[in-house]
């Protein structure tokens, strides 16, 4: 499907001469100048607000910088302080991983299972169920509703129901009690996690090549599970890889719902994550060098987890 002819033509001068030549490269760039011009607006913004900041953040993380004085180089001090002297960071790190290990895989599998079930429904109902499952992830900041549902007084829905049923006598402080904060946040995060990857899975299932399934039936696929494992999953590999990136990245970046529901900082840092720790140092204490070190650690964790998962998922099915 790719532009074979165009590609071959575009590459011929470079292919013939393996040796790298500046003049050839310059000619190539000149010949393709229209493409660079088309890409320029996007790429200028992308480099200014994504690539440059990643590099700058890495640089600042080796300095002491408070926005008033010029940054002062201090080597690895920020990092050693982060891992050796900052107990709260270790809590944040533990919470983030705890969060990601539960919400990441659960939401990923949920996205797939629901997409798989919904795909079997007649078109009208399918469109409606897609909307029902996808809506929470795009309905803006309505997660404040959960504040009312889990409200700590007897007017909260959960407390109201449990008290009416006689399971509890006193309202439970869901969002102020260390024991419950994480669980509540995980539920809310899962609620809004059927997003882009869910749509990608539904789309992947709908455009699945029918002849593959028929061929499978001829070749002795006995039940739906075998069909799922041997035919559906392997042919959806690109979507599965894409979905994994989306779910991992969002499950490691949980912060907004923690701030909105558990407060900032949350009781005894029970809902503290790497991102809220970053917000603490970046936008309250203005220790920009230290905050940049946190950001860099977060960047490494996100990229590392994603690349590792990509490698693992590619192995499945050869």
């Amino acid at each position, binding site marked *: 499907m790719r532009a074979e002819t165009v590609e071959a033509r575009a590459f011929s001068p470079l292919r013939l001469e393996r040796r790298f030549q500046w003049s050839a490269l310059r000619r190539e760039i000149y010949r393709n100048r229209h*493409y660079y011009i088309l890409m320029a607006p996007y790429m200028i913004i992308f480099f200014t607000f*994504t690539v440059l900041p990643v590099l*700058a953040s890495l640089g600042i993380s080796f300095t002491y910088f408070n926005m008033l004085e010029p940054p002062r180089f201090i080597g690895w001090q920020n990092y050693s302080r982060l891992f050796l002297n900052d107990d709260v960071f270790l809590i944040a790190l533990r919470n983030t991983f705890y969060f990601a290990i539960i919400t990441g895989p659960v939401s990923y599998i949920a996205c797939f299972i629901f997409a798989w079930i919904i795909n079997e429904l007649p078109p009208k109902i399918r469109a409606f169920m897609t909307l029902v499952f996808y*809506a929470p992830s795009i309905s803006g900041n*309505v997660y404040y509703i959960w504040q009312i549902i889990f409200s700590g007084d007897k007017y909260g829905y959960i407390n109201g129901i449990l008290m009416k049923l006689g399971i509890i006598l006193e309202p439970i402080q869901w969002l102020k009690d260390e024991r419950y904060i994480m669980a509540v946040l995980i539920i809310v995060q899962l609620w809004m996690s*059927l997003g882009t990857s869910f749509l990608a899975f539904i*789309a992947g299932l709908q455009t699945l090549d029918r002849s593959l399934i028929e061929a499978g039936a001829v070749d002795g696929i006995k039940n739906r599970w075998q069909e799922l494992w041997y035919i559906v999953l392997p042919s959806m590999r690109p979507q599965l890889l894409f979905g994994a990136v989306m779910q991992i*990245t969002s499950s490691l970046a949980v912060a907004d719902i923690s701030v909105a529901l558990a407060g900032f900082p949350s009781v005894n840092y029970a809902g503290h994550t790497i991102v809220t720790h*970053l917000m603490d140092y970046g936008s309250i204490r203005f220790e920009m060098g230290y905050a940049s070190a946190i950001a860099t650690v977060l960047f490494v964790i996100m990229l590392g987890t994603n690349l590792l998962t990509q490698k693992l998922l590619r192995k499945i099915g050869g």
Partner: protein
Amino acid sequence: MAGRRVPLFHRQKQLNRSFAVTFLLFVLLALFGAFMALPLIYTINNAFKPLDELFLFPPRFFVRNPTMDNFYDLVYLIGSSWVPFSRYLSNTILITVLGTAGHVIFASAAAYPLAKYRFPGSKALSTMIVLSLMFTPHVTGIPNYMIMSRLGWIDTHASIIIPAWAFPLGLFLMRQFMEQLPTSLLEAAKMDGASEYRIFWQIVMPNVKPAWLTLIILRLPSLWGSDGGSFIYSENLKTLNYALGQIIQGGIARAGVGAAVGLVLMIVPIVTFIISQSNVIQTMATSGIKD
């Protein structure tokens, strides 16, 4: 390739599942469907509840005597507050419309060469886009603030709108979708002497309409729900979501108005999705990360 959109349930050789398993699956679906939908239904109900119903014990889920009072209060608030409420609304609309439109145009312009041609740097740029899907803007927050202040964009809407144009997911999905445009179509236009810009604007763009809608639905909710972040300080530049936060802090007296604003915030992305759903699904079919 994308033309084969035959739904699975139509096929003849359907492998049968036992009735029990099917039943179980649909109970599961109904149960989780309720879990997903109830908070949203609750938001809708709340917006129409009179004040005495908002504070019932035990709390009641559905509205009994629906009223438009909350919306009247909202309109009243629009006229009477220090910063007119309509200002928050128009700021939000401005940010959403400009941010989304610019994103669709610039991401498409960048996606077209990356999808259809190879040239020095094209591979590196594609890789960079995939890598940037793997982290969130939190990572770049601090240097971003400094860059914004260098550019003099702090406390202007540009600080929200312009970075929104270069959202990596949009470029990624657009590129994947454009890859399946037939090359012969572009070649033919070139034969006729059309410039690359004309090909992009008059041939490529009209052919990727489903992808536009996808980019819109992915970009719109976060812009519509933007609270101005750390870049906007002036009250008259703030957004609807910020106003919602203020109203909620106003406490019990404003609970009804808060519910009405919540509904306004929620309904726009959802309606957009309802309108664009089939196009979005068509685009997402090409979303995969290829080996």
